[in-house]
């Protein structure tokens, strides 16, 4: 019996948890439904990684979930994508915190979390209806247990350092390259002595060079977390309280980049009425998760609003300080005789961050996630439960512009401070009636019906969701299980005729190992189970889809009369589409779970096929709509993949160890885009002016591919050019790129652009190793993503011809045989450099050693009944990343405007390598 219990808890699927997380207790665990694809990560597996963010700790622990930091800056959050991209809108899953949908995992302290369950297949997500299509993340915070009061303290303090910076050229190399380029273009050499002040010129000749990113790099920037948890209770009255503080400074300009977070968690469960036979007739309880945080954010992402990019591309000749020790600003330049350009060339990036909103941006946020429930159980197994939830997310962002004069074109004469506020609220109410029973000790039956209603205000726009749902499940003798669910959702975002959507699902499992005829092999064959499920879920991320013809006003509509006043204009700013409906996602899943040798070896494999149809696509007909955009259900995306999880462990004796390995392979394909050219176009000129569209989504390709010219090498000499049989430009000279004539029409033009790579990985993987010997423990974790590409570019190369170079430019073609990839130097707007080609595309695959922790529990030395745990540990995070990518970090999520894209590096905040010491104390 013990073995069976183990096998069931280890089995990676359990609808009962879904129900319980929705506020429905799963009954007496007399039977457990095991038909769906789901992964549970326990709280301890989150806290042992010593991360600031709970989401970050999930990286590498969930097969099939691609979790990527939005930025390496403190407090910037994560993007989760489960089983591939299935929408052109926001592909993040639905978060359900303590039964309340729509909360934020980032607003929790990692140590507050009891468990996180990730629901992946159609049968489990169907129960979440119109919001389940991207998968569901169920978070349960810690609750009080019976018995004596437990107090624990967990804390760590760490030192962060840059793990990698892109390599830029030094002042000396920079001068060589600028000179060579100038010579290639105009045949003239640059007279540096005339352009630079004499002292500076001499200093540079003696090796002076400015590495701008280094100038704002803070070595050993601190990161810390302190958590106190108290829990306890007695006789049906339990409570849990948590209080924590988190602080993290950025490694680049901590004054502009930092994160502070305070969390308070309180919850209780109280049996108000208990029958004489011990039946909990009336139970009430509540949950409150409160979070307040303050963040300073350095500008990052966009090419025009990116401090990191400024540091990377700034001229290495420009000194940080002038002779007098103050910043080398416009006035100092003029006084010194600096003559090497005055605008982009002489942008002093530190001055910009010191004076503008790029470096002066802070925000405060308050998040409240709370709920109250009341449960009535008049007879055993019949439960009536009502839960009211409240979510609040409110905050203020402050940006500042000081008076400054960086150069002639970049100045501000009037200081200003801008504050913007937001206030999002969500109220929900859910009622369920459930009944569980066991008949004749072999027939386990369960049924549930319920409804929920939610009203929210998101960015001042109201929304209402009304849902009815039901679930029926039956298990025979712990061998055969079937389950069916049905949910119908009505959304206020949709017009009346399309308002209600239905989400059915069925699932079944067969636990073969419980068959009588398996008994002979039970000794070593602990579990064999087959699962199959099918279900429908939906997606309607409508933050910007307002389904009505709404008028907006502009107080400065036009100038009439004298110029002191503006006239207000009124105009339609959103267009209704009465036929719009939610996206639907139909998923078929088969799985097998096996365990051997007393469950020491386990293997789970899942295969799935998901078709997301009616994907919402923005349509902007410049003629019929002018500047407006409308949305149509005209896309289809298919995801198919395989996931596996293996674990092996020795759980007994003094020396224990274990290994967990998981991986996922996903094939993503756009099946339909209902626009005329079957292309969803990406933003233009993302890298620099005139670089056009470098990414898009197109039918037959994965979502989000890079797009541009393909090169075939570099012409080495005149003979090669003359004898080249393919298509070339008439005036080609040695050192120029050989372009592929993709469409074979004999002309090299924009029609020859093609797919250069994809932005999302094919394969993701995670590994966790642990060893324990008496009080000593060691764990090693890593994760990786493979098959994706990155486009990296740190300067507006078609516009600014004096930006610093990446140091791989030293390997350019500069004579026969010197390079067959990078062409001769030339202005960035000319054909060799100005066309976005595969030269800019890099392999983005990586494997990261994310955590190594070594700890010792002094409880083994101190015989003390009061202290139940006293563990000290040291840990290293992000110790190494194996990658061919030359930029700061291949784990990057910048998408240049479209949520379905990622992998564009215009200068990104470097990831920190952290060493930390910590303590876990329990009483």
């Amino acid at each position, binding site marked *: 019996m013990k073995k069976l219990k183990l096998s069931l808890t280890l089995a990676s699927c359990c609808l009962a948890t879904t129900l319980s997380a929705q506020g429905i207790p799963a009954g007496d665990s007399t039977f457990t439904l095991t038909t769906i694809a789901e992964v549970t990560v326990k709280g301890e597996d989150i806290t042992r990684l010593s991360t600031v963010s709970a989401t970050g700790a999930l990286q590498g622990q969930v097969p099939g979930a691609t979790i990527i930091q939005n930025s390496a800056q403190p407090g910037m959050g994560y993007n989760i994508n489960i089983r591939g991209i299935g929408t052109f809108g926001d592909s993040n899953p639905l978060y359900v915190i303590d039964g309340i949908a729509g909360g934020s995992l980032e607003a929790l302290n990692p140590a507050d979390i009891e468990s996180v369950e990730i629901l992946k297949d159609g049968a489990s997500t169907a129960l979440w209806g119109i919001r389940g299509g991207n998968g569901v993340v169920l978070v349960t915070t810690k609750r009080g247990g019976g018995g004596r009061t437990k107090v624990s303290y967990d804390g760590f303090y760490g030192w962060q350092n840059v793990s990698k910076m892109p390599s830029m050229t030094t002042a000396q190399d920079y001068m060589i390259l600028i000179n060579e380029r100038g010579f290639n273009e105009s045949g003239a050499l640059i007279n540096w002595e005339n352009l630079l002040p004499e002292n500076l010129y001499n200093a540079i000749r003696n090796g002076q060079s400015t590495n701008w990113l280094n100038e704002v790099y803070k070595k050993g920037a601190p990161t810390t977390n302190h958590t106190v948890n108290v829990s306890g209770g007695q006789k049906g009255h339990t409570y849990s309280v948590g209080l924590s503080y988190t602080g993290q400074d950025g490694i680049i300009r901590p004054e502009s980049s930092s994160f502070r977070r305070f969390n308070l968690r309180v919850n209780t469960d109280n049996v108000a009425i208990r029958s004489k036979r011990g039946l909990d007739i009336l139970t009430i309880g509540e949950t409150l998760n409160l979070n307040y945080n303050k963040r300073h954010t350095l500008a990052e992402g966009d090419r025009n609003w990116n401090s990191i990019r400024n540091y990377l591309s700034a001229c290495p000749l420009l000194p940080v300080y002038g002779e007098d020790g103050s910043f080398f600003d416009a006035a100092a330049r003029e006084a010194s005789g600096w003559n090497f*350009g005055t605008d982009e060339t002489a942008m002093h990036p530190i001055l910009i961050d010191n004076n503008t909103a790029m470096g002066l941006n802070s925000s405060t946020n308050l998040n409240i996630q709370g709920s109250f429930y009341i449960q009535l159980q008049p007879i055993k197994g019949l439960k009536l439960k009502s839960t009211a939830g409240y979510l609040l997310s409110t905050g203020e962002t402050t940006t500042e512009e000081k008076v400054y004069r960086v150069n002639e074109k970049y100045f501000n004469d009037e200081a200003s401070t801008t504050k913007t506020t937001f206030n999002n609220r969500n109220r929900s109410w859910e009622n369920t009636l459930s009944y569980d029973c066991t008949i004749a000790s072999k027939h386990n039956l369960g049924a549930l019906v319920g*409804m929920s209603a939610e009203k929210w205000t998101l960015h001042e726009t109201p929304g209402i969701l009304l849902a009815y749902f039901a679930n029926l499940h039956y298990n025979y003798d712990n061998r055969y299980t079937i389950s069916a669910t049905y949910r119908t959702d009505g959304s206020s975002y949709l017009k009346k005729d399309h308002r209600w959507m239905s989400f059915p699902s069925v699932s079944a499992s067969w636990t073969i190992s419980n068959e009588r005829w398996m008994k002979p092999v039970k000794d070593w064959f602990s579990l064999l189970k087959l699962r199959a499920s099918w279900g429908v879920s939906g997606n309607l991320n409508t933050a910007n889809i307002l389904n009505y013809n709404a008028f907006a006003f502009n107080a400065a509509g036009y100038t009439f009369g004298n110029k*002191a006043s503006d006239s207000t204009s009124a105009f339609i700013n959103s267009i209704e589409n009465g036929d719009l409906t939610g996206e639907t996602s139909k998923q078929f899943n088969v799985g097998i779970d096996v365990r051997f040798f007393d469950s020491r070896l386990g293997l789970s494999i899942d295969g799935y096929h998901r078709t997301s149809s009616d994907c919402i696509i923005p349509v902007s007909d410049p*003629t019929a709509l002018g*500047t407006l955009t409308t949305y149509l259900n005209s896309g289809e995306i298919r995801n198919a993949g395989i996931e596996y999880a293996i674990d092996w462990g020795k759980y007994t004796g003094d020396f224990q160890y274990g290994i967990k390995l998981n991986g996922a392979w996903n094939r993503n394909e756009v099946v339909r885009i209902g626009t005329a050219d079957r292309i969803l176009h990406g933003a233009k000129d993302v890298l620099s002016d005139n670089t056009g569209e470098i990414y898009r989504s197109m039918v037959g390709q994965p979502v989000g591919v890079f797009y541009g010219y393909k090169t075939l090498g570099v012409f080495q000499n005149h003979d090669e050019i003359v004898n080249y049989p393919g298509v070339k430009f008439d005036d080609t000279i040695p050192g120029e790129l050989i372009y592929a004539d993709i469409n074979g029409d004999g002309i090299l033009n924009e029609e020859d652009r093609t797919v250069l790579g994809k932005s999302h990985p094919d394969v993701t993987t995670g590994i966790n190793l642990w060893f324990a010997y008496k009080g000593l423990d060691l764990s090693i974790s890593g994760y990786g993503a493979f098959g994706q590409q990155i486009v990296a570019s740190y300067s507006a190369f078609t516009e600014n011809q004096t930006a610093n170079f990446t140091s791989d430019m030293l390997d350019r073609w500069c004579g026969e045989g010197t390079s067959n990839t990078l062409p001769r130097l030339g202005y960035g707007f000319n054909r060799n450099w100005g066309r976005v080609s595969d030269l800019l595309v890099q392999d983005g695959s990586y494997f990261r050693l994310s955590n190594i922790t070594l700890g010792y529990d002094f409880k083994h030395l101190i015989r003390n009944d009061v202290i139940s745990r006293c563990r000290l540990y040291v840990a290293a995070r992000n110790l190494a990343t194996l990658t061919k990518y030359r930029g700061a970090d291949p784990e990057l999520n910048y998408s240049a405007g479209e949520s379905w894209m990622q992998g564009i590096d215009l200068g990104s905040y470097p990831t920190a390598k952290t060493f930390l010491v910590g303590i876990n104390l329990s009483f």
Partner: protein
Amino acid sequence: MKKTLKYISAIFLASAAAVSCGDRFLETEGPAYSDANFPATVEDVCQMVTGVYSSLYSAYNDCGAATWFVYSNIVSDEELGGGGGNDLDVQAMDRMLYNDRDFFAPFWRYCYEGINRANRVIDYIDNVTWDNNEDLRSQCLGEARFLHAYFYFMLTQMFGDVPLLTASYITEEMLPPASAEEVIYPYIISELEAARNLLPPTSYSGADPNCGHVTKYTAEALMARVAMFYWGFYKHITELVTAGGQQIQLVEFEGCYGGVRSTDDIVAALKDIVASGKFGLLEDFRSLWPYSNRALWDCTKENEWTPGKSYMYIADMDRENCFHENGDDDACTSREVLFSVRCNTTPGRTNNLTCLYGLRQPGADGIFPANTGQGYGTVNPGLWDMWTQAENNQSMSYTDIRKLGSIFDLRDELAGYTFGYDNAMEEAGYAQKKIQTIQSYIGDKLFLNAMSSGYYYGDGTTDLGLRNNPTDIILLRYSDVLLMITELTGDPSYMNQVQRRSGVPETAYSLKAMQDERLWEFACEGIRWTDMRRWSGNEGEANCYCAKSLQNNQSGKYIYNMGQKEVHKYNYAERYVQTDGFLDYPESVVTASDGRIQHKESWGASAYFDRCR
């Protein structure tokens, strides 16, 4: 105990029932203002009309160089592309090629935004009660008609046939391009006829707060410009004095009651403007443009200069003739203006063209009183040469005040001007002077923007800066009305008023005289391209006026590319014949049209302006 349970159960049931009436529960409070309840008041309609003007502003200021104004200047023989090595779009524009197939999409979008907004005003105007406000109703309707027509005039000038949307609910039939010649031009003329009948007979400069609203006279003047293009381009009547009997069939809707309009009607409309006495020529041509501003005239720079001597070119002006958009009678624009895109100092409502036309220079220091910018639309040296030739060609040579009144002679006027800065392309030493932000000292302090002076739009202490130029973009001047009358009637007296003002010998009517006079009077004002094409007729050959002018006045001239002197060579005439002067439809327009709108044959892959030089 049991009672408690019953009570709780009852709450459950009641509450579940309360929200189970589904659909009603799901009705959110819609937006405060939607087409279900808007417009509700007279003021709402007025604000909707302002929204149409907003689109007009955007079509001129929110599209970068992809505006009719900049395009007309650059594609004509007045300006080259200019800019830097990277500014392929403007260089392609000059050659009637493309760098980005979607470059003109923002312009297209804003025009159709305006068209859709105008249609909504027209369709919904009677949703509100206009008791005792019939005049205002007429004005709103007239303005919507006028602006609708103006957007179509711009679109057809640039693209030829385009979809004609005439109602706020668009049908399939409206979406393919309609024939500009057969359908759209008659429609434009009809709308202008309606506007003429509906709008009040007031001066454009009007009194505060009405200045900037188009009037009857704006409609009449634009009607003449449109009709003259129609007859010239589509009906091949190069010399309009001979066009007696030409007619345009009108369409019927409120304000326009069918029938035809002939050249005589157009002349009558123009003479109506003259007769109104509400418009006139400013005494000094230079008064129209910001470079003649009073702050500059007054400035002494720590007694280095005496008043009026800071900028030699305006030194001989009378102080009271200094640039004064505010007009001379407390009106809000000068009396010479019939139509303009009005700008002010509010961010998002400033004149953005000045940034494009600013000089491509490292800083404002050496080029006082001019300013820095993108350096687009460098003036074609051929224009300068032609002008100089004209001045010396007469039996008695003269100085046309408009030459230096319209063009910077950079080498002569701005001592610190350097060629080739920031990879500057297609420089020849000339820049347009009419659309510029002008520097000036106010007291002893140097201001990047002379409009910061308390005399204009600032407080005299804070520099509005380069980007906050509040000066209007003038689209139609009274001198145009005068020149059009002469061109239509052959009566030179109207043209002579214009010539007299600029110190140019008065001449008799001839087509050649008209062509020259219009070139000088409106240099770099975005008018020449329309003129060149109407004097050529559609499907013009390589020897038509437009092809010849483009070729002879531009190709073969010396220019500087990145500081290096080169001969500018391009076969403008051949390309003009290929395209007939029309642009291709923007890529996103073609894409979204579902096959209804096709790329034009002459704009295939060979029209790609390759960055390979």
